């Protein structure tokens, strides 16, 4: 089944307001693809353009190899799981699931057969005759999935489906959704503002902000090698050090960020001395040691300390520098030797330059022009 989705220079304008900047994207058949971004970034708009509820102002939408830009909703090979589920309240579970088959004129026996298969797939066998109102949130979720799968779509579109569920249920459903996707081989396009969801479930994620795709990559690459300032700050936590390039040696860049010692990190793009650049260090990349450990190059004063079980989160004001957040394992080897770390006390810090990311540009600009509107395969 060809479940590829291609967006070519697709844009969406409402009067003067541009909701989606011209964007191109290729989604593979059978992929679990997520759009991640804050509210208002345009992910729902993109989803609506793929499902057919919106016609793009420019550009084309191709599904399964055929141009679907002007094809109306009810004739696209897509099915959507709505945020509020939109199960038909006056119908039973069976009637809901069979709805798509009914409008296609499929006879009763075949419909019932398919509905039973799907009920089994979502582990709700026997609930067919129940009225929808009697189901729990998680059960309704699964019926919505079954209903969508009944019409054998090539692409399943999920609009923040788990946002209304409680934590435990959400975690359970993540696993289930992933399993269903693997089993059916349907392309899943998933939108969410929850990073945890996007990163754990997806093959690839597109991070969006203000109508633009910032970066498309698999979760690990997104985390380790962000390509724009937005991605670096939005995905996980990051400590930022804006500054100026002092020296470049291969991949390694030395940066003057106003601290007593320069910082070193790795840049994916070539930089010249004198270029403005920002260095990013994630909280878990810090090594924090007692104030008398001169092996650690940076110094600072601990502002606060939060105990979180396996981790200890520290806020440290670096000497002549910004306040950073560091996350250290609570039980570090040798933690009980030497001077203990106390709030208000001094400490020393180290990080691994090879893990620190350097991006060109400063706070208000994207790291590079190519990172914007990317159809990258990272």
């Amino acid at each position, binding site marked *: 089944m060809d479940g590829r989705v291609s967006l070519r220079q697709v844009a969406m304008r409402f009067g003067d307001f541009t909701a989606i900047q011209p964007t191109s994207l290729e989604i593979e058949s059978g992929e679990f693809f997520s759009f991640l971004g804050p509210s208002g970034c345009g992910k729902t708009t993109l989803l609506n353009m793929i*499902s*057919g*509820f919106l016609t793009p102002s420019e550009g084309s939408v191709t599904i399964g190899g055929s141009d679907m830009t002007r094809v*109306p*909703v*009810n*004739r696209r090979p*897509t*099915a*959507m799981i*709505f945020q*509020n589920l*939109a*199960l*038909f*309240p*006056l119908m039973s579970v069976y009637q809901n699931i069979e*709805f*798509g088959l*009914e*409008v*296609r004129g499929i006879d009763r026996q075949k419909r019932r057969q398919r509905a039973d298969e799907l009920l089994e797939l979502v582990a709700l066998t026997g609930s067919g005759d129940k009225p929808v109102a009697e189901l729990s949130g998680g059960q309704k979720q699964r019926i919505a999935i079954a*209903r*969508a799968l*009944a*019409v054998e779509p090539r692409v399943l579109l999920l609009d923040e489906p788990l946002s209304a569920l409680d934590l435990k249920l959400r975690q359970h459903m993540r696993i289930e959704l992933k399993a269903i996707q693997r089993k059916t081989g349907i392309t899943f396009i998933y939108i969410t503002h929850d990073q945890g969801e996007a990163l754990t479930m997806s093959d690839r994620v597109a991070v969006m902000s203000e109508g633009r795709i910032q970066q498309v990559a698999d979760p690990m690459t997104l985390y380790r090698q962000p390509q724009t300032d937005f991605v670096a700050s939005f995905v996980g936590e990051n400590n930022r050090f804006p500054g100026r390039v002092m020296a470049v040696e291969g991949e390694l860049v030395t940066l003057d960020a106003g601290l007593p010692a320069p910082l070193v990190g790795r840049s994916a793009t070539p930089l010249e001395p004198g270029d403005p650049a920002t260095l990013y260090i994630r909280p878990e990349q810090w090594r924090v040691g007692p104030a008398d450990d001169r092996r650690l190059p940076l110094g600072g004063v601990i502002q606060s300390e939060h105990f979180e079980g396996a981790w200890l989160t520290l806020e440290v004001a670096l000497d002549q520098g910004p306040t950073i957040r560091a996350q250290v394992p609570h039980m570090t080897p040798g933690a009980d030797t030497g001077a203990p770390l106390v709030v208000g006390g001094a400490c020393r810090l180290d990080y691994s330059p090879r893990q620190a990311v350097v991006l060109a540009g400063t706070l208000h600009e994207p790291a590079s022009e190519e990172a914007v509107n990317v159809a990258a395969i990272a």
Partner: protein
Amino acid sequence: MSSSRFFSWALKAYLLVFFVYLFLPLVIMAAATFNASRFPTVTPWTGTTLQWFSALWADSGMWSSLVNSLIVAIGVLCLALPIGIASALFLTTVDGRGKSFIYALILSPLLTPGVIIGISTLIFWRGWGLNGGIALTVIAQSAFIAAYVMLMVAARLQRFDRTLEQAALDLGASQWQVFRRVLLPYLKPAILSAAVLAFLQSLENYNTTLFVAGYDTTLTIYIASKVRTGLTPAVNALALLMILFTVGLAMIYEFKRRREAARRLG
């Protein structure tokens, strides 16, 4: 405070008088049905009898006007229901500059005196060759009954979750299928209530019907004419039966409505 006690006593007395005022005429009228006196009254009471019911049964004029009333009511249902539903669909779907004007236009029959609706309908359709009769009555009554239908259907329509339409489209339904299988079932209770209301309003209408009925008298016109000519308690018998019918229907309707509301909340 005694002033407050006085008020509360006065209020209760007032309510009592009020409801007596409201129900007494009906009680008296019902009672007069069983009085053998030739003129409908309860004083003097000349004897208890059921003869007026048989007199009513034998009255062919009554039967033919009853049939006319029913035909008109059914005709009104066929005309006012689709129009009212269409208008409700229109008003809940569109937005725009002309909307409030159209809304005012739709409500105008409700604010127009019934006689004016009757007269204008009579005048207009004579130009098209249609004179007073059942068809004209249906048209005239539907002119304002459709507005009531619209109000009742629109009230329910406004609470409809439109993502259900989107879901149905997304699953492949055509727009007609979405209407028939998702929207219409949802509207069914409102349409039924509107139908009951339209039916009853048609049966009991007088002011408008008076001008457009022609020779096809309806029940209300028949009763009114009987009161001024040839009045006997047979009219009371008819009145009593109509009251029982209407009140019975109304109470069934009310109970069903209350049960629906309770079920939705509970």
